[in-house]
C-alpha cells in the first residue's frame, strides 16, 4: 500500500530525514518510536504533504501512485490521514462546517454524491458515538479552546468520518489520561480493517497495549535504525534509547 524508498527531506537547508525505507501492507499496524527530534513528525508531515519540507531524494508510492506528486488535499482524498501531534486551533470556523466541506470534496474526488445536511448529520452522530466525543465540542469553532485531550479525540473523530486507508497518528496518545487513551485506541481499532493500515508514532509502549502493532521501528537521526515486533517496544520502555544510539555509533565507526 505504502512504499517509502530512501526518503531524504530537509527544511530550510537542514537535512532531517536521511534515507527512510518502509513498506506497509494493507491490514498492518506499524509503530514508529524514537527520541525527541529524531524526525518522526517530519516523516508524518512529509507523507501528508506539508510544503515547508523539501524532499531531496527518494520516492514514496501509495496504492501505486507517486504520493509526493500530489497536493496535500489530493493525498487526503486518496485516503491518507494525518492525526496531528499539535492540532491547529482555527477560530471562527465551525467544526461541522469544516468537516462537511472536507467530506464532500473528498467524495467529489472519488466520484461520489455529496452528502446532504441530513445524511451528514447522521454520519456525524454515528462517528461521535464511536469516539465518545461530546456534541457540544463540535458545535464550537474548530479546536478553539479545546483541551489537549479534546483536540486528540477530535482528530480521531475526523479520521472516523473520513475513513482513510492509511492513518498516521502522530503522538495521539500524548497527554491523554488512561480513560481517554482507551477511547481513542478503541476508536482506532474499530476502524481497522484488512484493507487499511495504520502508522502510530508514540513515545509510550502503553498505547501499544491497546493498539497492537505488527512492527515497531526506531527512528534516529532521520533514519530507521532498528525494526522489530512489539517486544522491541517493551525493550525500549525498559532500557531507553541509549543502547540503540550506541549501536548506531558502533556501526558507523
Amino acid at each position, binding site marked *: 500500500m505504502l512504499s517509502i524508498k530512501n526518503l531524504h527531506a530537509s527544511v530550510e537547508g537542514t537535512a532531517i530525514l536521511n534515507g527512510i525505507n518502509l513498506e506497509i501492507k494493507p491490514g498492518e499496524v506499524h509503530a514508529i518510536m524514537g527520541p525527541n527530534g529524531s524526525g518522526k513528525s517530519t516523516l508524518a508531515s512529509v507523507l501528508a504533504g506539508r510544503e515547508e519540507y523539501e524532499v531531496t531524494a527518494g520516492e514514496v508510492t501509495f496504492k501505486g501512485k507517486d504520493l509526493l506528486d500530489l497536493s496535500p*488535499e489530493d493525498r487526503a482524498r486518496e485516503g491518507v490521514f494525518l492525526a496531528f501531534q499539535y492540532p*491547529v486551533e482555527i477560530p*471562527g470556523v465551525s467544526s461541522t462546517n*469544516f468537516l462537511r466541506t*472536507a467530506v464532500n*470534496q473528498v467524495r467529489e474526488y472519488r466520484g461520489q454524491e455529496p452528502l446532504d445536511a441530513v445524511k451528514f448529520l447522521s454520519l456525524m452522530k454515528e462517528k461521535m458515538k464511536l469516539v465518545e466525543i461530546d456534541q457540544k465540542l463540535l458545535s464550537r469553532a474548530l479546536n478553539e479552546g479545546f483541551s489537549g485531550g479534546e483536540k486528540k479525540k477530535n482528530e480521531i473523530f475526523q479520521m472516523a468520518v*473520513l475513513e482513510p486507508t492509511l492513518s498516521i497518528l502522530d503522538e495521539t496518545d500524548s497527554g491523554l489520561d488512561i480513560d481517554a487513551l482507551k477511547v481513542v485506541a478503541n476508536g482506532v481499532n474499530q476502524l481497522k480493517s484488512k484493507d487499511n493500515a495504520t502508522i502510530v508514532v508514540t513515545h509510550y509502549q502503553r498505547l501499544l497495549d491497546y493498539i497492537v502493532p505488527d512492527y515497531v521501528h526506531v527512528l534516529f537521526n532521520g533514519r530507521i535504525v532498528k525494526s522489530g515486533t512489539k517486544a522491541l517496544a517493551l525493550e525500549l520502555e525498559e532500557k531507553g534509547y541509549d543502547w540503540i544510539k550506541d549501536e548506531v555509533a558502533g556501526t558507523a565507526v
Partner: protein
Amino acid sequence: MTLSLKKDHKLADLFLQAKPESAGPKFFSDLKSKARLVLEEVGFPTVKAEEYKYTNISKKIADSIENPGSPSPISNLEKVEALRDLLDSIDGYQIITNNGIPEEALSDSPEGLFGLHHFTDLDASAIQEIGQIEKPENDAFSALNTFSFSQGLRIDIPDGKILKKPLVMVHYVRADENGACVYPRIFINAGKNSQASVIELTVFLNDETVFVNSVSEWAVAENAHIRHYKLQDGNKNTLEVHNTGANIHKDATLTSVVLSLEAGMIRNNLSIDLNASNCEGNMYGLYLLNGKTHVDNHTNVDHTQPHSQSNELYKGILADHSRGVFNGKIFVRQIAQKTNAFQQNNNILLSEDATVNTKPQLEIWADDVKCSHGCTTGQLDEEALFYMRARGMSKESARALLLYAFAGEVLEKISIEPFKKYCEKLVHERLGGSY
C-alpha cells in the same frame, strides 16, 4: 501643489470659489463663515500633517476632481433599481438623499415615529445644535462639508420611542456637468430611552469619479441605544471623506459598524464622546481591499466620566496594491475611573505589495481603568491552511473559509438579519472570487 507645506491652500481656494455662501438662517451663514475661515486659514492637509500622513486624499482630490461644484439632483430616482432587493428585504423606513440633498418626497416619515426636517425648516433651538458635535475646526473636510452643503437633514427620534424597523438612509450619487462633489449633512437626535438602528448605503449611479464628503452628528440622549451600520461599496473611482461625531449621554449606547468593500480612497473619521457615566461606545469595522484601494479609519473615543465603556474591533484583508490605515485614539480623563476600553486592529495581507499602517494612541490619565489594545498584521495562517488541506479541502476553499472566519467576527456585529445576510453574501463573493 507643494508637498512641503503642511496644508494645501490651492485646493481650498478652488472649493471656496466653487461654492458661493448660500443664504438661509443667520445661524448657518455664521457657521459657514466659520468654516470658510478654517479653510482659508488652514487649508487641506498634505502628507506632512500628522493626521493625514498615510492618506494623501487632498492630492487625490486635486488630481482627479476636475469640477469642484456639486451635481444637480438626479431625476426619476424612484426608478433606480440598484439595491432594490436589499431595500425590500430590509423593509425599513427609507430616507433618501439625492446628490447630497435630502429628498422629502421619496423619504418615509410615518406619523408619530420620528421627525424629519430640513435644516432650513428647523426652529431656533434645534438649529443651534448643528455643527456643535462635529465642529468645522475639527478637520478640514468637516469644514468643507459645513461650508459646502446646501441642505441638511435632521432626524429626531422622540423620547421613549423604540423603532422596530431600521431607518435606511440611501445616498444616491452621480456627477454631472455642474460638478462631482456631494455633501450629505445629517443630524440625528435620539431622545431619552429611545432605540433605533440606522443603515447607511450609498448608490453610485455610474463609474465616474466623484467625491462624497459627509458630516453626520449623533446626539444620543440618556438611556438611548442606537446602532449605526455603514456600507461602503462603491467603485474604484469613488473618493470619500466622512466625519461622524457622536455625543453619548448617561446609560446610552452607540454602536457603529463600518464595512468598506470597494472604493478608490476612503477616509472615515469617527469620534465618540462618552460624556456621562455608564455609557458605551462600540466601533467595529471591516475592510476588504484589492487593486489600489486605500481605506483609512481614524477613530477617537473620549472617556470623560467614570464607568463608561468602549469596544473597538477593526479588521482588514488586503490584496494586490491596496492600503489600509488604522488609527485609534482612546482618551481616558482623570476623573473617568473604572473605564473599560478595548481596542483591536487585525490585518491579513494577501500580497507583498499590500500595506497596513496601524497605530493605537492611548492617553490615560485615570489610574483605575481596564484598557487594552493590540494590533496584528500578518499573512494567512499557513498552519491552519495545511491542517484543512490535510483533511481533503482544496487550498481555495480552505483559504476562503479562513478569511471568511476572520471577517465573520465583524459581520456578526450586524443585528439586522436581512442586512447581515446581504453583507455576508458580498463578503463571500469577494473572498471566494478575486482573493
